[in-house]
């Protein structure tokens, strides 16, 4: 009984909850608790799926082989997919970053324009800015970005990228990407991954706002968007969330009470499968 409930819960948390949460646009105004809630939901889905087999153990006493076998199959399948996805995504990311870092280190001298270290400048006209996360992280700018961005907007961009590196947002994104790929195709929701990406950007934007204010941060977005748009052949189309991100810069932060409710929600969601598992053993 509890094993079935846990399997259903896993399905609900992996397939239905992300689709609903991706529509809660006001979540975006509090990116930190929102990301905690997203982690809680995905973690609870994993716990529920992995707990199906342990919760079915009591059936063995009554010779309920079939129920136990099905629960064990669910758990092993999920575990296998998680490990495989974790391995694939992890090695793929690390290889891509290592190759990219080699190229950047050969092509781009450390910026000696008087700013702090760790910034590399690529000789390319397309304005773009990104960071290479990892142990030897880099913030990379193109000469096109340096030419297009006024000093205050450049500070906003660098503050945003440094926030990604400082907060290890790459690990957060990797976690969600691994889970996304481990969920079977009909159940997984691309809109959930897109929403999480937007939340991570919104979180880094908060750091840019603290350094440079919302208007300058928004102008920096505009400047880079204008510079990248003509390069449609080279630049990816993005996922169309930039305007949404820009509008977030105009919104006031939510009240601490709302954040507290979101944290409570996160805690409750994780507690749900654990409670079911505990009940199954009573």
């Amino acid at each position, binding site marked *: 009984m509890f094993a079935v409930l846990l399997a259903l819960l896993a399905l609900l948390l992996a397939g239905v909850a992300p689709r609903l949460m991706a529509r809660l646009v006001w979540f975006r105004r509090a990116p930190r608790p929102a990301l905690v809630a997203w982690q809680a939901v995905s973690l609870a889905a994993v716990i529920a799926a992995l707990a199906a087999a342990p919760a079915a153990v009591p059936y063995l006493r009554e010779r309920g082989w079939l129920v136990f076998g099905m629960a064990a199959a669910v758990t092993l399948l999920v575990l296998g997919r998680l490990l495989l996805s974790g391995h694939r*995504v992890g090695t*793929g990311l690390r290889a*891509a*970053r290592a*190759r*990219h870092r*080699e*190229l*950047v*280190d*050969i*092509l781009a*001298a450390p910026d000696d324009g008087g700013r702090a270290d760790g910034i590399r400048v*690529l*000789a*390319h006209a*397309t304005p*773009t*800015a*990104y*960071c*290479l996360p990892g*142990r030897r992280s880099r913030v*990379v700018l193109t000469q096109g970005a340096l030419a297009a961005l006024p000093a205050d907007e450049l500070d906003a*961009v660098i503050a*945003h*990228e440094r926030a*990604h590196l400082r907060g290890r947002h*790459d690990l957060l*994104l*990797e976690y969600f990407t691994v889970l996304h790929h481990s969920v079977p195709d009909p159940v997984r929701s691309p809109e959930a991954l897109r929403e999480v*990406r937007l939340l*991570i950007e919104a979180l880094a934007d908060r750091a840019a706002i603290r350094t440079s*204010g*919302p*208007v300058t941060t*928004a*102008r920096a977005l*505009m400047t*880079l*968007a*204008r510079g*990248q*748009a*003509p*390069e*449609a052949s*080279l*630049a*990816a*189309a*993005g*996922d*169309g969330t*930039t*305007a949404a991100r*820009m*509008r977030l*810069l*105009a919104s006031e932060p939510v009240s601490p009470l709302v954040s507290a409710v979101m944290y409570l929600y996160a805690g409750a969601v994780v507690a749900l499968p654990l409670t079911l598992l505990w009940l199954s053993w009573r």
Partner: protein
Amino acid sequence: MPPPPSAPRLGDLERAVMELLWSGAADRPQGASVREVLEGLPADRDLAYTTVMTVLDRLAKKGLVTRERDGRAWRYTPAGTRESLTAETMRASLGDATDRRTALLHFLDGATPEELDDLRAALSEVEQRRG
């Protein structure tokens, strides 16, 4: 874990060696030997032959230079021009690869010309409400 103290120096050296190979690529289509690279680098660097050999070996392992036997020594050629490697880097950074968007964290992840109008409207909202 901080990188070993020699790492930044080695990185500088790799860059200097690549610059040298690139700038001399036209004069030496058959590539440069370790000795030639050593002689091409500024004398004040005071480098050992083996250091330059190590650097070239590392660059070859990274696929940034190719090497060919020439008698008892190797001759090294850049694997691509500076422009082509920059283009590869930009493709990896901006191209449409699925992993790219997770491997690198961009300030702005691409924008289509159609998106620009929407962005302009959003910007004026920000300027009105927070300016």
